[in-house]
């Protein structure tokens, strides 16, 4: 167990760790800077993996379980890398009544993932929101930042199909 927490080495020589270190420095390597530090890791790396959690815990002298607890309590933190494309479906009252549960179920079935998960190929993350505040357009979903209202099953699946095929094409071009 390291006692001088400033001396903890980052898990890799990735330069982004310097940003994380700077955040911890700003908080004097105190444990109460935990959330802010996790914020920085999330921003810099896009997600929190075991290595980064261990590093932050060791640097701040915080218990591992507490670091894990905090990073699963807040929805902003994610323990897995996000997919290249995101689909956020609204589960607010209006959207719920207008048939979002059935739509969500169909998407889940089609892509073999549950809400909050990412497909194995990393193309699509399926997320849910409590309410997007566009209840007049219910049911509402957001495809890669573009809001789509009054959705029906066919259109939703179409949009998803479009998003994911574009990704595959780009990739095949890259590979070629």
């Amino acid at each position, binding site marked *: 167990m390291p006692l001088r927490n400033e001396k903890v080495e980052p898990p890799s020589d990735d330069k982004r760790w310097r940003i994380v270190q700077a955040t911890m420095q700003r908080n004097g390597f105190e444990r109460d800077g935990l959330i802010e530090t996790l914020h920085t890791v999330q921003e810099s790396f896009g997600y929190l993996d*075991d290595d980064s*959690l*261990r590093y932050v815990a060791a640097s701040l002298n915080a*218990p*591992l*379980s*507490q*670091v*894990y*607890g905090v990073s*699963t*309590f807040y929805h902003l933190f994610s323990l897995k890398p996000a997919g290249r494309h995101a689909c956020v479906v609204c589960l607010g009252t209006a959207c719920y009544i207008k048939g979002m549960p059935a739509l969500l179920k169909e998407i889940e079935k089609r892509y073999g993932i549950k809400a909050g998960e990412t497909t194995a190929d990393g193309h699509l993350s399926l997320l849910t929101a409590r309410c997007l505040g566009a209840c007049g357009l219910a049911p509402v979903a957001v495809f890669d930042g573009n809001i789509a209202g009054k959705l029906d099953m066919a259109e939703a699946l179409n949009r998803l199909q479009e998003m994911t095929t574009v990704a595959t094409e780009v990739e095949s071009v890259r590979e070629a």
Partner: protein
Amino acid sequence: MKRPFKTRVKTLTIDGMAVGAREDETILELAQANGIFIPTLCHLEGVHDIGACRLCLVEIKGTSKLLPACMTYAEEGMEVITDSERLLTYRRQVLDLLFSERNHVCAVCVSNGHCELQWLAEKLGISHVGVPYLYPQLAVDASHSFYVLDHNRCILCTRCVRVCDEIEGAHTWDVMGRGVECRVISDLNQPWGTADSCTRCGKCVQVCPTGALFSKGKAVAEMTKKREFLPYLQLMREGRK
């Protein structure tokens, strides 16, 4: 334990009985000292209270809110009611929800007959659970060499978390997630047996009110918990100061 006040004496009534209290005494401590029963699950003598289980809710004259006795300090002229029809209804509801949230099957539980949840349900006259069960699919972690963690019986009282942090100082346990997804975890949500911070002291097992933490090799109704160590540790530590 650290107290926020200097000691002064307050007079108040609990269930109509006039009592004197130190300013740093909670209603719960005061009631217990005066032989008044208030049901509790998360409260544990020797570690900090967190007011999580809401079973010790009491009525206090002058406020319409119910306040947790373990987190409310005695005040001058307070009129506390610890037992009423309204409180009993709420306490039963709390137990109802605890029972329905996980798979509490007393008949096959290691702690059958020695379980605080079961005992309280009996004491408060619960004959059936009024809400539908959730039946979550939960794992049992038997990776530790001496003990087993069974999420099916956990009521998230966090006694294990607090005793591990405050008494043992290891902080192996914590709670992950939120709401109905909450789970007690060791280290990075890894099997307990692989958690390096665990000292295998077993304090968490002994303070667990239900059969969520138990010694390996115990069969139905065989698990009894030994709590004597906690006041003893407390006493010895105070003596050293």
